[in-house]
């Protein structure tokens, strides 16, 4: 399929301070100089990225790097956000986005004392899907996360992975245009992870945009684009192929390590032109 990431020279490595070239593709998420202050310090610092519509974008980085906070800012539930953050053409957190954007928190947020179906029926009703329409939405979501066998099990008695899938299923209700998934594959077995990534791909092919956070680098290979976050700043934003090319590493894990080492222990700051790394030399750029 054709995604903007295949021409990685053009979008190359976008880092703090550099703007994506305007135009070409509709952006589902546009962040310009976004910082988030939490507990007296900036946990997200001057993030400028553009996530193209209809793609699966990975948000990767070590735990504590600000992935969840950035996702929360995009959902519009994070306080202390500065900068310009546009989601589906509207200000992040706008009331009209509540139908168009779905968000899955890192910890499964479902009612433990309700059954899987009862949970889904409630969330579907809030989205305006009741009666037969609601039942169909729920059945579709259950089939997508492969939980039909547990439809009438109480959520609190499910395993952690099953509960995470219930949480994910609630986000699929109502066919959202943008899905923001915070570590949706943590604790899932490899088969299920593969199936879920196939689902993400299907949703994107149907026109949805997905931003999926993970700290497992091998999941980056399943994404169209990868945003690597470290210490609250964007280290790189490129296609998996682009990351390999700029770092001369075959494994994305190594590419990630190379990028982190390039950045050194110091914060990555200041403006860098997208071409700075295009030459492929491994000079420290920070």
């Amino acid at each position: 399929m054709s995604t903007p990431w295949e021409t990685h020279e053009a979008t190359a490595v976008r880092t703090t301070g550099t703007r994506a070239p305007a135009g070409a593709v509709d952006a589902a998420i546009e962040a310009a100089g976004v910082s988030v202050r939490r507990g007296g310090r900036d946990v997200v610092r001057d993030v400028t990225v553009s996530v193209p519509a209809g793609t699966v974008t990975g948000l990767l980085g070590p735990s504590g790097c600000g992935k969840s906070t950035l996702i929360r800012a995009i959902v519009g539930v994070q306080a202390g956000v500065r900068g310009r953050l546009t989601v589906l053409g509207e200000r992040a957190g706008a009331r009209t986005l509540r139908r168009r954007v779905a968000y899955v928190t890192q910890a499964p947020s479902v009612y433990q004392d309700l059954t899987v179906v009862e949970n889904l029926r409630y969330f579907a009703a809030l989205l305006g899907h009741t009666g037969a329409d609601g039942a169909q939405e729920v059945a579709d979501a259950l089939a997508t996360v492969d939980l039909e066998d547990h439809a009438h099990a109480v959520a609190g008695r499910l395993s952690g992975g099953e509960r995470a899938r219930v949480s994910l299923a609630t986000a699929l209700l109502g066919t959202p245009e943008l899905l923001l998934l915070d570590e949706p594959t943590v604790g899932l077995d490899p088969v299920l992870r593969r199936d879920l990534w196939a689902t993400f791909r299907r949703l994107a092919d149907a026109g949805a945009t997905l931003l999926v956070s993970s700290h497992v680098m091998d999941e980056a290979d399943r994404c169209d684009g990868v945003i690597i976050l470290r210490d609250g700043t964007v280290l790189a934003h490129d296609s998996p192929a682009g990351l390999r090319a700029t770092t001369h590493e075959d494994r994305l894990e190594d590419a990630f390590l190379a990028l982190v080492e390039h950045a050194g222990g110091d914060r990555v700051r200041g403006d860098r032109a997208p071409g700075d790394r295009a030459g492929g030399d491994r000079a420290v750029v920070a």
Partner: protein
Amino acid sequence: MSARASLATAARVLRQLRRDPRTLALLLVVPALLLVLVRFLLNDGGPAFDRYAVPLVGIFPLVSMFLVTSIAMLRERTTGTLERLLTLPIAKGDLLAGYGLAFGTVAAAQGLLLAGVAAGPLGVELAHGVVPVVAAGVANALLGMALGLFLSAFASTEFQAVQFMPAVLLPQLLLCGLVVDRDRMGVALEWLSAVLPMTYAYEALDAAAGLSAGSLALPLTVVLAAVVAALAAGAVTLRRRTA
């Protein structure tokens, strides 16, 4: 505001309660059992029991509703479901109205059961019949619910939420006129009792049972106004954006 979202929320809360039969049984049965206990405590009934039966009918549900709703809402906050709800198309008022409807339904069942036990086997004289007593009882339970929803915002653990019961309700119980008549209190305490909602909840129960000459409508209105005020304050504590 949307009736659909409120009703869906009320149905969901009731479903959760049904899934927890022990809590439901405690909510419904404990106040009635306490009333029976008081009956035997006060020497097999008589004037003292007639004096205290109905006020207790109302105050017990207030306390139990306060505890149940403050913990239910605290769970909603701590398990992340509240954050998810607030990213969905539901107004904060719808959420609170849903809780109000669900617990109001339970309160009505609780009030009917209590009034039935009082008027039936325990033989309490209800001068104006069962209906005003149930109405005052439901208003009491709603007050407990609204205070519980509001105060849950200030607790970060269930331990803290439980502590709000003695901290917030016991002073009101001491000052509402049940323990000492308000006109026998010092001026400062009488003024203090005049601004506490449970004082009016107690007055409503007294009037409903025909124990005082006062009207039922006035204290009942004050109680319902306090319920609305506490729910509005509760809505303010539901923040879509958090740190």
